[in-house]
C-alpha cells in the first residue's frame, strides 16, 4: 500500500492525486506575483522604526532623485481618493497608514515608493527619511500603559463568556484540584510565497492579483476603499503558497497598491519582504491562561474554569476566544470562563490555523495531563471518564463524537501500552524517552456557497466556484464530488476557482470549504441529474421511458435503472442541448434569508459548530514520543501518531496530508515558533527564517495519520467535517505531556526550549 494514499474505509472517497499535483511539483503553478503583467512598475514599502508616536515629516528628495523613481505616496496623498480600511469581516485592521500620521505599531507603512525596477524602488525606499515624535510604547503583557478590557461584547464574534452551573460551589467540593497558568507566544505567518499585490486598471476596471482566501470579500472591501462599484473590481488568486489565515482578511496594502496604479496610470506590483510582512501582515496573538480544574478521586471533573488574556492592537478588538470550544470539550459539571483583551502598541493580530483552539486547547489539554498525574490515572482513561455525548454548556447532544475511538486506535498504533509510567523511566542510551497524548478538536463550521456546473455532450464537466485552492486540495475534492454525482470519471472534471468573477464562495477559513463547496457542487450536480432523469423518463421511446426519476442512478456516463441503461449523451441529444449548466446556491440550515445576497456582498454568514440543535465538532487524539538528551536537554520528536474522525472523508490522500501537515506545525508550535519582542521599543526582533524557527525535515521523523471511520448526516448535505485545522490542535499539549514524562518538568509556557529543561 502507498502510505500517502490510504485505502478508503467506510464513508470515504477515493485517494486520487491532486488535480494540480504535477503543476505544483514541477513549478508550473502560477502564483499571483508570477502572473505576467505588461509594463508593470514596482513598489517598495517604507515602514516605521518606532512603535508609537507621530510622523512629523517625510524627506523624499534623495529618494526622488534615484533614476527610475516614478512616484512616492505618503501620508495625505490618499485623502479623498481612498476610503479608510475597516477592521472586521474582510479587513485586517482599521489602521489607515497613509490617511493618518499616528504611528500605532512598529513597522507601520509610512510611504510607498514606485519605480521602474524593484532595485530602483528598493534603493529609493532606503533613502526616504522620516522624522517622528516618538512616544513610550507598551509592548504587551506586563508593560506599563497597556489597557485590559473584557472580550465579551468587544467583538461581534465573541458576544459572551460561556458558562454553566455554579463553579464556586462545585470547586469547593472537588477532592483533587489543579490551579495553573499557561501561555502561548506571538507567532507569525511565514508562508513560502511572499505576500504581494499587483494591480492593473483597464478602462475603469481594476484587476488585483494577490493570494487570497476570500476573493469575493476582498472585491467588495476593495471597491469600497477605492470608491468604485464592486462590478469594476476583480480579485484573482489562482494558487496560494501558504494561507492558514494569513490571506483571510485584506490588509491596507492592497488598496494602497490599487490606488498607486490608478494614480500612475500603469500596473503596479509590490512584493513585501519577509521582514516587512511581520508588521504589515497579521499574526497569532500571544495568550495567557489561568485554569482551575476540580475532580473527584474517581476522575470525574466537577468544576472547570478557564480564563484567557489575549493581546491585540490599540484600535482593533481582535478576539481569539477559544473558551467556546474548551468549555464544551468534556463533561465537566460546572463551567466558568472569561476572556480579556490586552491592548498594546502592536499591529492587529488575526487568524492563524485553528485560531482559538491552538492556544486554548493547548492550555486545557496541558491541565488535563496535570490532572491525570494528580489523580494517578492513565491520561487516556482520564479522558474516557470525562467523555460525553452531551456538551455541558447548553446540554445539547453532539451530532457525532468519536473521540475515544480515536484514542483507542491511535494508542494501539503508537504502542501506548509499552509506556512505563515513572518519570524518566524510559531511556535510549543518553536520551530520555517520553510519551504523551492530547485531544484535538475543531468545530464543524459551514457557510453559504454558490457553484456553477456545466456538463457538455462529450462528457466533460466544468465546475466553477469562487473558492480558493490554498493547498488543501479543494479543487480536487470538488471535482470528486462532481464526478461522483454525475457518474463521470475524475479526469473529465475541470475546476475553476480563485477568481471573484466566479460564483461566490465563502472565505476559505474556519475549515468550511470542503463542506460548503461540496454541498453547493452537489446541489448543482443534482439539478443536472434531475434534468437528465426527467428527459430520460419522459422520452417516448427511450430505454428508461416511464420510470420514476427517483429510481434512476448515474454511473460510467450512463443513466441506470437496474438492467436498463441510457447513455447520458443520448439523453442530451434527445433534449436537443449541447450542454447542461446549473447554478446552485447552498445555504446551511438555519441561515438567514439574506445569506446568499450577503455572500455576494462579501459579508460572511458562517454557521458555527455550536449553533443549531446539535453541537458539531470533529475530534482526534494525538500521541507523541520525544527524546531529550540527559545532559544538553534538546528535545527531538521521534514519533507522532494521530487518529482523527471527521465525518465523510472526501479524499483520504488529501485528508492525510492536511492532518500530517497540521501535526508537524504542532511540533513547531511546541518547540520552535515564537516571535520575540524587544520590550523597550515594542518591536519584533527575530523577523526572518534564520531566527524564527520552524521544523525542517530533520526534525520530523515518523508521522502516522489514522483516518477513523465516522458518519454524520447532521453536519451538512455533504456529510463532511472540516479537518484542515484539526491536526495542529492537540500536538503542542501532547509534546508537553511527553516532555513531562521524560523529565518531570511541566512546561506551561510555549515554546519548550533547551533552557526550560536544563
Amino acid at each position: 500500500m502507498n502510505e500517502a494514499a490510504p485505502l478508503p474505509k467506510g464513508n470515504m472517497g477515493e485517494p486520487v492525486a491532486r488535480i494540480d499535483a504535477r503543476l505544483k511539483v514541477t513549478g508550473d503553478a502560477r502564483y499571483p506575483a508570477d502572473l505576467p503583467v505588461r509594463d508593470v512598475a514596482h513598489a517598495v514599502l517604507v515602514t516605521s522604526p518606532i512603535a508609537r508616536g507621530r510622523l512629523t515629516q517625510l524627506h523624499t528628495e534623495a529618494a526622488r532623485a534615484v533614476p527610475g523613481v516614478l512616484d512616492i505616496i505618503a501620508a495625505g496623498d490618499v485623502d479623498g481618493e481612498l476610503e479608510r480600511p475597516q477592521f472586521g469581516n474582510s479587513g485586517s485592521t482599521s489602521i489607515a497608514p497613509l490617511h493618518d500620521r499616528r504611528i500605532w505599531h512598529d513597522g507601520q507603512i509610512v510611504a510607498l515608493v514606485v519605480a521602474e525596477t524593484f532595485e530602483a524602488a528598493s534603493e529609493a525606499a532606503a533613502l526616504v527619511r522620516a522624522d517622528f515624535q516618538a512616544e513610550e510604547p507598551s509592548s504587551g503583557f506586563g508593560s506599563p500603559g497597556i489597557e485590559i478590557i473584557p472580550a465579551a461584547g468587544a467583538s461581534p464574534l465573541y458576544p459572551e463568556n460561556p458558562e454553566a452551573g455554579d463553579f464556586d460551589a462545585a470547586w469547593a467540593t472537588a477532592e483533587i484540584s489543579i490551579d495553573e497558568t499557561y501561555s502561548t507566544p506571538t507567532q507569525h505567518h511565514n508562508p513560502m510565497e511572499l505576500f504581494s499585490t499587483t494591480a492593473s486598471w483597464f478602462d475603469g476596471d481594476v484587476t488585483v492579483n494577490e493570494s487570497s482566501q476570500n476573493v469575493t470579500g476582498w472585491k467588495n472591501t476593495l471597491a469600497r476603499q477605492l470608491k468604485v462599484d464592486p462590478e469594476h473590481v476583480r480579485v484573482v488568486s489562482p494558487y496560494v503558497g501558504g494561507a492558514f489565515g494569513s490571506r483571510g482578511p485584506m490588509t491596507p496594502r492592497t488598496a494602497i497598491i490599487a490606488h498607486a496604479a490608478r494614480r500612475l496610470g500603469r500596473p503596479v506590483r509590490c512584493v513585501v519582504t519577509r521582514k516587512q510582512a511581520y508588521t504589515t501582515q497579521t499574526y497569532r496573538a500571544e495568550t495567557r491562561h489561568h485554569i482551575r480544574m476540580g475532580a473527584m478521586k474517581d476522575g470525574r471533573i466537577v468544576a472547570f474554569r478557564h480564563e484567557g488574556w489575549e493581546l491585540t492592537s490599540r484600535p482593533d478588538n481582535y478576539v481569539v476566544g477559544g473558551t467556546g470550544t474548551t468549555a464544551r470539550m468534556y463533561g465537566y459539571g460546572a463551567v466558568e470562563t472569561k476572556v480579556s483583551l490586552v491592548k498594546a502598541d502592536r499591529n492587529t493580530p488575526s487568524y492563524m490555523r485553528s485560531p482559538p483552539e491552538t492556544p486554548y486547547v493547548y492550555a486545557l489539554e496541558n491541565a488535563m495531563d496535570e490532572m491525570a498525574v494528580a489523580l494517578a490515572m492513565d491520561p487516556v482513561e482520564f479522558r474516557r471518564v470525562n467523555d460525553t455525548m452531551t456538551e455541558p454548556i447548553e446540554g445539547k447532544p453532539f451530532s457525532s463524537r468519536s473521540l475515544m475511538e480515536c484514542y483507542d486506535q491511535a494508542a494501539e498504533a503508537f504502542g501506548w501500552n509499552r509506556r512505563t509510567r515513572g518519570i524518566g523511566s524510559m531511556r535510549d542510551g543518553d536520551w530520555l524517552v517520553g510519551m504523551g497524548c492530547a485531544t484535538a478538536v475543531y468545530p464543524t463550521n459551514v457557510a453559504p456557497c454558490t457553484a456553477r456546473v456545466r456538463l457538455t455532450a462529450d462528457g466533460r464537466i466544468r465546475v466553477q466556484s469562487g473558492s480558493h485552492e490554498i493547498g488543501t486540495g479543494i479543487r480536487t475534492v470538488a471535482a470528486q464530488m462532481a464526478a461522483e454525482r454525475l457518474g463521470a470519471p475524475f479526469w473529465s472534471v475541470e475546476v475553476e476557482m480563485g477568481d471573484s468573477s466566479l460564483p461566490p464562495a465563502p472565505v476559505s477559513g474556519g475549515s468550511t470549504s470542503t463542506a460548503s463547496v461540496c454541498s453547493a457542487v452537489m446541489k448543482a450536480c443534482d439539478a443536472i441529474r434531475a434534468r437528465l432523469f426527467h428527459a430520460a423518463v419522459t422520452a417516448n421511446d427511450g430505454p428508461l421511458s416511464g420510470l420514476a426519476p427517483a429510481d434512476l442512478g448515474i454511473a460510467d456516463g450512463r443513466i441506470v435503472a437496474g438492467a436498463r441503461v441510457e447513455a447520458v449523451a443520448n439523453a442530451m441529444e434527445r433534449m436537443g442541448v449541447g450542454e447542461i449548466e446549473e447554478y446552485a446556491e447552498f445555504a446551511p440550515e438555519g441561515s438567514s434569508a439574506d445569506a446568499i445576497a450577503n455572500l455576494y456582498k462579501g459579508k460572511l454568514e458562517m454557521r458555527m459548530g455550536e449553533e443549531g440543535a446539535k453541537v458539531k465538532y470533529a475530534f482526534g487524539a494525538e500521541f507523541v514520543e520525544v527524546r531529550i538528551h540527559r545532559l544538553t536537554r534538546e528535545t527531538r520528536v521521534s514519533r507522532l501518531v494521530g487518529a482523527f474522525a471527521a465525518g465523510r472523508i472526501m479524499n483520504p490522500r488529501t485528508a492525510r496530508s492536511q492532518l500530517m501537515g497540521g501535526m508537524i506545525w504542532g511540533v513547531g508550535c511546541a518547540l520552535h515558533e515564537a516571535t520575540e519582542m524587544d520590550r523597550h521599543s515594542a518591536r519584533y526582533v527575530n523577523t526572518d527564517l534564520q531566527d524564527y524557527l520552524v521544523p525542517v525535515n530533520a526534525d520530523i521523523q515518523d508521522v502516522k495519520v489514522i483516518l477513523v471511520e465516522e458518519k454524520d448526516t447532521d453536519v451538512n448535505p455533504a456529510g463532511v467535517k472540516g479537518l484542515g485545522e484539526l491536526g495542529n490542535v492537540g500536538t503542542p499539549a501532547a509534546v508537553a505531556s511527553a516532555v513531562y514524562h521524560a523529565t518531570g518538568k511541566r512546561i506551561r509556557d510555549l515554546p519548550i526550549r533547551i533552557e526550560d529543561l536544563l
Partner: protein
Amino acid sequence: MRPFGFERPETLERAAGIVAAREDRAAPPPLSSAQFIAGGTNMADYMKLGVMRPNLLVDIGRLADPGLRRIAASPDGIRLGALVRMSEAEENADIRIGYPVIAESLQQAASQQIRNMASLGGNILQRTRCEYFRDISWACNKRDPGSGCAAMDGFNRQHAVLGVSDRCIATYHGDFAQALIALDASVETQSPRGGRTMAFSELHRLPGETPHVETQLMADELITLIDIPAKPWARRSHYLKIRDRQSYAFAVASVAVVLDLEDGAVRDVRIALGGLATVPWRAQEAEDELKGGPLDERTAGRAAEAAFAGAMPREHNAFKISLGRQALVRALLETRDMRV
C-alpha cells in the same frame, strides 16, 4: 539595493592592489568601501539587508592561483586553500579520517546549497548573525561604530557570554573556526606588503572598545591558506553542535574537542567553544584542568566549571552558561568514547 562597482581580477596581487589603491585602505576591513567576495553567501545577504554597503566588490572567485583551491594532505599536516568550498572540505577523505572535527563542523553548518558555494576563507571571516546587527534600524556598535548596542538590554537569548564587552555581545556563529582553534591551525595571508602567517587563534579580535574591528587583517589583505599541523591524535576529535532544531540552524552552543588519551588519562587536549563567545574561543582553563588526569563525567564537569568561570550573562542568555558546561561535558565524553 544600492548600486556598486564590480571587479573580477585574475591575480591575487591585482585583487589586493585594487583595494590598496583606495583612499580608505586603512579602514577596518568591515567598514572599507571595497570588499572582497568569494562564495558571496554572507556578503550578498548582508548587502541586500543594507548591513554591508560597499561601493566596490572585488570578486576573488576567479583568481588563477591553483593553490587557493587545493586540499593538500602531507605527513606535516593538511593545507586548505582559502577558496576551497565548504562541501569540498567536508567530503575530503583525508579530512574525514584524520580530522573528523573539521568534517563534522562543516557538515553541521548552514545548508548543503550554501556549503556548495561558500569558501573556507570566507567562512572563517563570516560576520555575526546578531538580530540587531542584521537589521539596520537598530543601534549597533559593530555595524555603525558609536551608535550603541540595542542587544545589550534587548532580546539577547542568542548572545555571547564569553569575551563580551560593554560595547558588544554579538556571538561569533561559525562552526569551522572552532575546529581550527582546537587543531592549532594557522592562516597565511597576502597583501601588497607581502605575506604573513599567524596562529588562527590570534586572527579574531575581542570586541573591546572597537567591535567593528573583528580581525588582525587589513582591508587589502587576503587569507590564502589554512594550515593544519599534523597531529596523530586528531583522529580522536569531535564537534558537538547544540541547536534549537535538528538542522540548518546556528549553534546555541557548540564544542570542538581534540583529545590525546593514553591508558584512559588525558595526555593532551584542545577545546574550543562556539555559539557562546564573541570570537572563536579556546577554553584553555578547561584543558589545563583535564591534562594528566582521567576523563570521566566528574572531571569533565570540573573542566566545564573552569571554562565558564569568567562568563558574563545578560537578561536572556544565562542558560548558555549551564548549557555550555553540559555541552562541554557531553562533547568530552563522546570524544573519549570514539573508536579510532
